[in-house]
């Protein structure tokens, strides 16, 4: 019933999809994270307009499906630019995933900073520690510890969400499995291989995150 041997020749093709999936995940994370930090700072700031702007941004990206956002960026960009600019699949993917991930990570970062006991600010103020040093030496090192586990979750989500890129034609891990499935008229075998590869990547991220968390922890 199962014919794994039939897909052996296609395994390198499927495995190569890991690179594509990781490329989208890592670049989107690197672009999304700084934007998330900026949005989080805007949310915490005392400037009302900045706060509202950042909140609206998060609401829009959390309030609509990621697949819809991807479709909008990919298919509507040429229309909106009067066909002046044809966006590539790679660009559409990175832009959408980065903007979307920034919305989620900004909430994680905001909550992580807000969770710091206000007494830490009071203590720093009484001791005469300047504000920027309070941020960098007292608040942020503690916030990182709050933020890290949730941020790893976000990274895992992002890694799995990049599979959506297959819909607009990028040959990522999922897409490659589907191509092999169509070629061999076998669905279970290639897709279960892709599933195992996704699973292993997620496990690896979790493993390193746990190690890092342990290293950052204090009694």
């Amino acid at each position, binding site marked *: 019933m199962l014919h794994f041997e039939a897909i052996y020749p296609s395994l390198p093709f499927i495995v190569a999809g890991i690179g594509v999936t990781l490329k989208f995940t890592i670049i989107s994370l690197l672009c999304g994270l700084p934007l998330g930090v900026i949005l989080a700072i805007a949310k915490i700031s005392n400037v009302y307009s900045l706060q509202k702007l950042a909140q609206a941004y998060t609401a829009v990206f959390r309030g609509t499906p990621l697949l819809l956002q991807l479709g909008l960026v990919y298919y509507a960009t040429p229309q909106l630019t009067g066909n002046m600019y044809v966006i590539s699949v790679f660009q559409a993917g990175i832009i959408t995933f980065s903007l979307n991930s920034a919305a989620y990570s900004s909430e994680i970062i905001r909550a992580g900073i807000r969770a710091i*006991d206000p*007494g*830490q600010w*009071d*203590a720093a*103020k*009484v*001791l*005469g*520690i*300047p504000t920027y*040093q309070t941020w960098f*030496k*007292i608040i942020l*090192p*503690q916030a990182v*510890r709050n933020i890290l586990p949730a941020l790893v979750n976000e990274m895992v989500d992002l890694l799995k969400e990049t599979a959506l890129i297959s819909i607009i034609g990028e040959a990522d891990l999922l897409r490659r499995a589907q191509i092999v499935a169509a070629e061999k008229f076998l669905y279970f075998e290639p897709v279960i291989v892709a599933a195992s590869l996704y699973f292993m990547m997620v496990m690896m991220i979790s493993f390193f995150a746990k190690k890092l968390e342990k290293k950052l922890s*204090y*009694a």
Partner: protein
Amino acid sequence: MLSVKNLTKRSGSLTILDKISFQAKAGDITAVMGPSGAGKTTLLRCLAQLDHPDEGTLALNDQNLSVLSHGEIGLVFQAFHLFPHLPVLKNLMIAPLSQHMPWEQVEKKARDLLSQFSLQHKSEAYCGELSGGQKQRVAIARALMLDPPLLLFDEPTSALDPEMVKDVGEVIRAVKSPKRVIILVTHEIRLARSVADHVLFLDSGKILDNLPAKEFFDKENSDFLKSGLSERAQRFLENLA
């Protein structure tokens, strides 16, 4: 000499401190006593410049508190507020280092203070590994790193076991110095009796009694009706007795 004149602090329509005036001498420990909600902690927060008074002046040796340079006011918080991500030694060093004092000098001072408080073996420990009493001594040592001429204690016994009250008293007496004004907010009558030179009794944002400790506590034991102690303070002391 700490001098507080007409200090008023409001929160919305509520007056937390109502035109408070008093003086506290350098070299003395002034205990601020009173029931919950009397405004004791708010008074400390105003003195520490964490809250800004709505009216009134606060001056230390004729210098307005708001113009004192950073770290000249030490505050030992009720919940200590140590920095949990730093070892004990770094907790002590972070403030002077942030003011660009030389590392070696700062480290020497921190180690000296830790030995003074019998904590030299804990210099590399994180705060989560310390007992309540040790945390408090670290908090006091941290406040002393910059030799503050004004040192404030907020309910130093509230987070500790009752049998440690005596130890706290000893530590507080040990940091007494002729040039330092110490203000001690406390509920703990045994602590106040053992260390205070002067007592302020606060209720509903007003100072009802301002007496040398001897008189304050003497009156507690004598006939209340004849004493000059406010009725509110008498009831407070009776309840605690």
